[in-house]
């Protein structure tokens, strides 16, 4: 089954952009977000604007697990911790993975939300991107 993804001009170039919902039970978080599918990123990382818009409080931040990780992305240097069981839903496809949440921006402009290779791996998804025809999709194995 193919899940179409839009190809839009965003922040200087054509990007595969996907709208998805994010749900976590503990800490309780829910929201709709736009993300860039980036096969250059091994991890899925929430953009700090999305962290703010989903009103993730300091108390919820304390429920994030794992050691602080230093991440360099898009010229930004930040520290993240893991949201352990985030449920990401695109159309009818649900993928449960840990998502990195920025807890501190050390340097630079924080990047948008990134869907990384971990999402494709966990969801057993293939990713097709043809910027010249502005076509992109995720393909499930079922």
């Amino acid at each position, binding site marked *: 089954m193919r899940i179409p993804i839009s190809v839009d001009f965003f922040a200087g170039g054509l990007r595969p952009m996907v709208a998805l919902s994010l749900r976590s039970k503990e800490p309780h978080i829910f929201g709709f977000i736009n993300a*860039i599918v980036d096969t250059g990123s091994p991890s899925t990382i929430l953009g700090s604007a999305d962290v703010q818009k989903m009103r993730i409080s300091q108390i919820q931040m304390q429920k994030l697990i794992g050691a602080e990780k230093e991440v360099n992305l898009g010229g930004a240097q930040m520290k993240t911790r893991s949201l352990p069981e985030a449920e990401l839903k695109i159309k009818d496809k649900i993928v449960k993975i840990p998502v990195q949440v920025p807890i501190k921006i050390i340097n630079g402009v924080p990047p948008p939300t990134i869907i990384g290779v971990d999402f494709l791996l966990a969801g057993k998804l293939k990713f097709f991107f043809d910027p010249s025809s502005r076509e992109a999709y995720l393909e499930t194995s079922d």
Partner: protein
Amino acid sequence: MTEQIFQPREMEAFEEDSRWFYKNVAFLRKKNLTGKFVAIKNKEIIASDSNLDVLIKFVERKKENPSYLVIEFVYPEGTVVLL
């Protein structure tokens, strides 16, 4: 503390608003929204501010849940975000 009651929204509406945003970035720049965050509902800008906290508080005062809305930053023309 008073509990805020927000209107629920569907994913399809969010997707529509997202598409509208990406298609209309040049139009938003002409409206002097460069360098600002914008909140979009039903293909309309319902709030804008260069400070995201201020924008979110404004949206909540309008009884909207920011989690369900498209909230995007309007990058200046020529800005390239490398990932």
